[in-house]
């Protein structure tokens, strides 16, 4: 059975599509800015689905008018972490919402081995399951 049919991480928006080009990312950023969202850039090399908090690359960017500023940060982050996962997140500060409303990956390593499903046998015939990234064996910074 194929557990990783696309050979790539599918988290956030657009993750089943081919990677977005910079022009397409710019359009998404523009959309978010028009809605009044604050964009932020985050990166990690441990993309486990339960790893919610990735490392922040600089502060969230409030009060921006144009996508060029956000794209500049994305490019800086790509330069610093060329083979990490990098995602863009949009924060909606509307009272009552106050959470991330958009999130998509803008950079990924060349080779994505995916995750394995580990089965732990328990008493009787019961099983415990856990997912573990194939890349997560190595220490941080050397994974991809």
């Amino acid at each position, binding site marked *: 059975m194929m557990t990783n*049919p*696309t*050979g*790539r991480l599918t988290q956030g928006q657009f993750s*089943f*599509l*081919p*990677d977005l*080009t910079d*022009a*397409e990312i*710019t*359009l998404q950023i*523009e959309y978010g800015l028009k809605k009044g969202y604050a964009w932020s850039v985050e990166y990690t090399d441990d993309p486990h689905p339960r790893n919610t908090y990735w490392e922040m690359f*600089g*502060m969230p*960017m409030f*009060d*921006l*008018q*144009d*996508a*060029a*500023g*956000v794209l*500049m*940060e994305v490019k800086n982050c790509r330069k610093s972490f060329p083979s990490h996962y990098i995602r863009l997140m949009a924060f909606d500060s509307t009272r009552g919402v106050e959470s991330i409303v958009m999130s998509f990956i803008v950079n990924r390593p060349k080779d994505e081995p995916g995750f394995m499903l580990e089965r732990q046998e328990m008493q009787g015939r019961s099983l415990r399951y856990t997912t573990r990234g194939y890349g997560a064996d190595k220490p941080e910074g050397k994974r991809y």
Partner: protein
Amino acid sequence: MSAPSYSIPGVVSAAPTGPVERAADAAASMALVDSGARSVAQVLAQSQVEDVLAELERDLVGLAPVKARIRDIAALLVIDKLRINLGLTSQAPSLHMSFTGNPGTGKTTVAMRMAQILHRLGYVRKGHLVAVTRDDLVGQYIGHTAPKTKEVLKKAMGGVLFIDEAYYLYRPENERDYGQEAIEILLQVMENQRDDLVVILAGYKDRMDTFFQSNPGMSSRIAHHLDFPDYSVDELMQISGKMLGTQNYRFGPGAAEAFDRYLQLRIGQPHFANARSVRNALDRARLRQASRLFAERDRELTRDDLTTIEAQDILASRLFKTE
């Protein structure tokens, strides 16, 4: 049914990505679209260039060199459009500017307008203005300056970054001053992201000259060095007329002549700040008018009374007493 609703990278069929890419291209380079125009008149008809120029002529008094430069920039835009229509390459010009001049000559006012003008001419995408001074760019401890400057730059992208009193950025007397770091980041962005952002530096002439002397890199990256001339008495009178008009005031009989005489005296005095002095003088005249009307408790005040500045309001100035 067997075909997945997503496409797997590497085996993508070309069809679905077409329109997305085309939309992205159109957004990325609005100016590069062939509009079919072949003459200046046709381009002018399609754009707002002439409105912008007419408005500028109407709203700003004097400032001939500044208006001439804006007209040049507008002309370049029109010619660039024509070049693009014929398939010739055209590069976005460097639009970083420095405004130098005495106090009150309209540097800040023009900078505020410039963002709007450049937006309507199609040189900047958003047309907002971010006005900053040294405090907003330079941090207080090591490692504070770079993020602070970058944050301001990011906010200004797509518009105009206006640095007032820019000479304060460089403090030669303190070699460990963080201002130099802010200048370096500025220079880098000014060079690399010329089409994302226009930087305008403003300051008094003599101090800006020393600033540029000690930062030759900054001077050479700024294409437009505009010098704001002092206003003549006639221009100051026009300005005062406009200022009063926007506040719903007008000069009464003899008041305009009195104000003319006031200006002639005031120009010779120290600390004369052109339009700013005019505004202050008018504000004082309004105060005197108010207390004059205040004194007449029982009079019914008409619209005329409330909007007219009389000659006596101006002649009460301290300047006339020294004559």
